[in-house]
């Protein structure tokens, strides 16, 4: 099938318009971050006449973003570790063993995966209060782990299903116990899917604000997204600073995305197909 040049050009033109729609709002954010504050009021939508990093510096220091980055990083890494280990174990059990109650567990996971998050918020408050896990990053990590586990168990399970059973049997014959089979065989074979899980959980914890907002109160424990919410609360009339804070909150994930595009895209899409 031959395509006329005019068709190629018009197709690219159309896709470029779509590109503007997808990326334009983000471009606006970048532009307003570097636009001088005075200009913002007179020309909020136009191109800046000069560039400044004052807003960025002000947002970083006044918002105490350094601490928030550390908190988000800690929460992200810890959640990733918990989800990978306990989720890996669970997925292994579901993929490689036949046992009574397997279907019940699968149905249970499917149910918990589709429970709307608001459904268990109020009782969770009281459980957390009584366990003294309120206003602590550890408490938040446990919440995230519990919420993200079902989806990731499905994701891991569907990958493990593809590993031939004979491989496991031969390892058992070689004298490996069950844990060793998992650690020495499954884990090295499943590096790509664990990377996907890590990326997804990392992205979600970085952007999550609903639970972080409800369960963290101290300023010094806030994660990046709730830091941004609080920042908007106290500086909302200063759009330049709020833009800068938005850019600061977004940039790390965007950079990570640019480097690991394929893993992100495949992880998110395949995850939802197989999950």
């Amino acid at each position, binding site marked *: 099938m031959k395509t006329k040049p005019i068709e190629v050009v018009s197709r690219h033109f159309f*896709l470029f318009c779509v590109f503007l729609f997808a990326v334009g709002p983000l471009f606006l954010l970048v532009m307003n971050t570097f636009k001088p504050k005075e200009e913002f009021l007179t020309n*909020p*939508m136009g191109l800046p006449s000069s560039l400044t990093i004052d807003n960025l510096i002000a947002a970083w220091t006044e918002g105490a973003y350094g601490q928030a980055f550390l908190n988000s990083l800690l929460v992200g890494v810890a959640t990733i570790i918990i989800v990978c280990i306990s989720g890996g174990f669970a997925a292994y*059990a579901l993929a490689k*063993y036949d046992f009574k109650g397997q279907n019940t567990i699968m149905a249970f996971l499917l149910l*918990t995966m*589709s429970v709307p998050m608001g*459904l268990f918020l109020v009782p969770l408050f009281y459980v957390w209060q009584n366990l003294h896990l309120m206003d602590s990053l550890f408490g938040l990590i446990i919440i995230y782990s519990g919420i993200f586990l079902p989806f990731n168990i499905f994701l891991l399970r569907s990958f493990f299903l593809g590993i031939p059973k004979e491989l496991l049997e031969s390892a058992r014959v070689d004298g490996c116990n069950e844990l060793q089979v998992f650690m020495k065989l499954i884990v090295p074979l499943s590096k790509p899917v664990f990377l996907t899980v890590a990326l997804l959980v990392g992205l979600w914890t970085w952007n999550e604000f609903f639970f972080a907002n409800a369960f963290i109160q101290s300023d010094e424990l806030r994660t990046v997204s709730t830091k941004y919410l609080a920042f908007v609360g106290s500086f909302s009339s200063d759009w330049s600073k709020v833009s800068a804070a938005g850019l600061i909150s977004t940039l790390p994930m965007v950079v990570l995305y640019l480097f690991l595009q394929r893993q*992100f895209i495949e992880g998110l899409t395949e995850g939802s197909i197989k999950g």
Partner: protein
Amino acid sequence: MSSDLVIINEVIQIKRSRRNWKKAMIPWLFLSPALFLILLVVAGPTIGTLILSLTDWDGIQQPKFIGIENYQALLSDPNFFAALGNNFKWMAIFCTVPIIFALIIAYMVSKVKRGQMFYRSSFFLPQIVSTVVSAKIWAWIYNPFMGLNTVLTKWGFHNVPMWLGDPAIALFSVALVDGWRYWGFLMVLILTALHQTDKSLEEAAVVEGANKVQIFWYVILPQLRPTLMLILMLTMIWSFAAFDYVFVMTNGGPGNATELISTYMYKEALQNQSPGYASSIALAMAVLSGIIIFVFGILKKKGWDM
């Protein structure tokens, strides 16, 4: 039979059953940490919600058991039905606009030789940006005194839409933002499926003299059916739980034009001091999304995705 043999037999059986028991325990041991976490965070509190929904708890006083009174109140609560109606509108928007848009764009992208990766990654990018930040950006764009409308009026457009201020369109304005984030994800799903379509069928159709629309309609679309059905299910489930953008951008207003069940529940629980009633709303919501999953489950069993 000598008694020795009986004893040996018994020993073997005990050993075997012990081994079986041990063997049966292994998957549960592997499952236990994850199950514990899920029970603690999701399942346990969900049951708590079920119990709370049978009380008149106001967040302060001792809760009192009132049976199904909350559910009766729910059935005569116009705010709940307004929110439910908005949820269905929201679902109707998401089951059509972003899917069709993503389908068209994915088809176009699949026909592009150069820059396919570029388009794919940039269309997917909004998915990476956090809700709170993108909601704020769009709130600026929609701001009637500072945003897009100031530019439009400068260009000579009058009667510009009052994006978030007009109750007739506010829900669509917010849906546009959520759709802006969401469609790129669908595009990638469809694009992947397009790459797996059978190219020889297309070529055969060209030979037969079919035009482009016919090829798309009769040759390509049927091959995308499993993907599209899956997308439809995901979209229905997710759109029922929609919360973030409404919460950040309009808080349900103007009036209750953008109120969804999720935001209504949140308000009842934390602002109106009736977590008991809010729990019954949450449960009604869970039942409705349960029905959707159930229906799709049946459809899947009947082989709709073949």
